[in-house]
């Protein structure tokens, strides 16, 4: 089923760094458990009968999101993840980051992979200023590091280009501004293994260009970069290898051009 090839080309890193594995997924299975979604009727009586009918996890619905995915990623690679909505791309990333426990199989990693995203740590009621500090600390930066990077983050986000917005609460930002600040905070840290989930789609054209440049920079510093995107162009621009997931299974793994061509055929583009 999985057509596995390791790309012999290494666009990004230098050749000496190649073939040192940084992430190994070994027959990985991820299962979500959802409470109270067994019967369509969410009524109190059905909930009660679920509790009364004891047995092996009645009333808990299982969603098998990733089914037996195996691959090996090497230092210096930028790997794109493609597939239709709900194919398990984001779940796979979270499992690699160690944020979702595996049901079966294992993920081995070099150092601590990080997911690019701090959205959850930020609070809309706080000023952009405090969110920069909070987000940096949440990603595991020290207080000194946050202080040192603060101005860089604010400048990169371009929030202050149209006035002093960084001292206003984040709920007053436009959605584009907020997304830019989030990306800027998240991209401020250097990572061993970096995973980016559709982060490139945010902001206006000018900001998109800036963030693509930043990703290339991060990729140089990071060992390996994973990028989830529905934008085939941004995958072509940044990745040299692509994993194609469909229904939780690895459908194809190979050089970007080959896989994307097949994927485009599949989606009828």
């Amino acid at each position, binding site marked *: 089923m999985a057509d596995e090839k390791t790309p012999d080309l290494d666009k990004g890193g230098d050749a000496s760094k190649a073939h040192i594995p940084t992430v190994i997924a070994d027959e990985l299975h991820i299962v979500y458990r959802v409470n109270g979604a067994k019967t369509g009727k969410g009524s109190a009586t059905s909930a009660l009968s679920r509790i009364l009918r004891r047995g092996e996890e009645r009333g808990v619905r299982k969603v098998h999101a990733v089914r037996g995915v195996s691959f090996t990623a090497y230092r210096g690679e930028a790997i794109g993840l493609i597939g239709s909505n709900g194919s398990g791309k984001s779940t796979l990333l979270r499992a690699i980051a160690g944020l979702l426990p595996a049901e079966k199989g294992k993920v081995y990693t070099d150092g601590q992979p*990080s997911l690019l995203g701090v959205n959850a740590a930020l609070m809309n009621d706080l000023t952009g200023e405090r969110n920069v500090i909070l987000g940096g600390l949440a990603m*595991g930066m020290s207080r000194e590091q946050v202080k040192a990077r603060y101005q860089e983050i604010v400048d990169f986000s371009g929030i202050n280009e149209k006035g002093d917005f960084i001292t206003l609460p984040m709920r007053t930002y436009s959605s584009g501004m907020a997304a830019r600040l989030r990306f800027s905070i998240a991209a401020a840290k250097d990572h061993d293994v970096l995973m980016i989930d559709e982060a490139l789609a945010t902001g206006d054209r000018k900001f998109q260009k800036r963030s693509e440049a930043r990703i290339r920079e991060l990729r140089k510093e990071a060992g390996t970069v994973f990028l989830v995107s529905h934008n085939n162009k941004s995958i072509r621009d940044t990745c040299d290898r692509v994993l194609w997931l469909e229904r939780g299974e690895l459908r194809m793994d190979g050089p970007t051009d080959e896989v994307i061509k097949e994927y485009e055929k599949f989606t009828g583009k």
Partner: protein
Amino acid sequence: MTASPSTPPPDDGLSRAELAAKYGLTVSGARPGLFEYVRQLWGRRHFILAFSQAKLTAQYSQAKLGQLWQVATPLLNALVYFLIFGLILEADRGFEREVYIPFLVTGVFVFTFTQSSVMAGVRAISGNLGLVRALHFPRASLPVSFSLQQLQQLLFSMIVLFLITIGFGSYPRLSWLLIVPVLVLQFLFNTGLAMIMARLGSKTPDLAQLMPFVMRTWMYASGVMFSIPVMLEDHPDWIADILQWNPAAIYMDLMRFALIDGYGSENLPPHVWAVAGGWAVLLAVGGFVYFWKAEERYGRG
């Protein structure tokens, strides 16, 4: 796998697990050892503090009066309890008015500290799944941070408490210094309890619906608005003993003893400091280990 991997010759024929071992890769998301966990948690102390302060500030950021509510909320709370229990129900049996009012307000504030720590603990993981699923940090940061938020909330309430105590004729004296150890012990106790509740709540979010009733029962049984020995005079001694030895009552009594002139040591159960310390250490250590045991499973499902 169908195709042979094009890794360099020396790695050929190695299974994935062997390959991982060869290059020193580790299993992602494995639970660290207890001491390593403590070290990681200590490394996140700035995040824990910043997160608790951010939560505290965000609470009233939409209100016109803003942070003034930090003090106004406990003041209104005290007023309500005084109205009901002091004026209408006259629960102040065995006390003079100058003692009863500070007695009541101290009880309400100190109990609220434990109550809100427990309630925040239940939701610490289940209410922050987004954070747990997006970022890497020792998960104990969340319950600790929420207890810390409640501690800061209590410090605001203490301003109100000092004013009331002074207003009813108990002036600052040396025994007020005892507030510090009492707060430290109660904070340890609350944090441990919050960690236990966080693990339970992550598995069974329904606890958030149940806990208000448990906490209210605990409040009425702990003598927040009445003196346990006086109220239970005609009942067997052991009932009053058990109620008095319960941690919430212990911390309330110690705080009253420290603050109020007319509330002497005759109101305290024997070995009160040892009991207070015992509860704190038991819950803090036990709760921490209990929470750590499930570290790698938070955020599932």
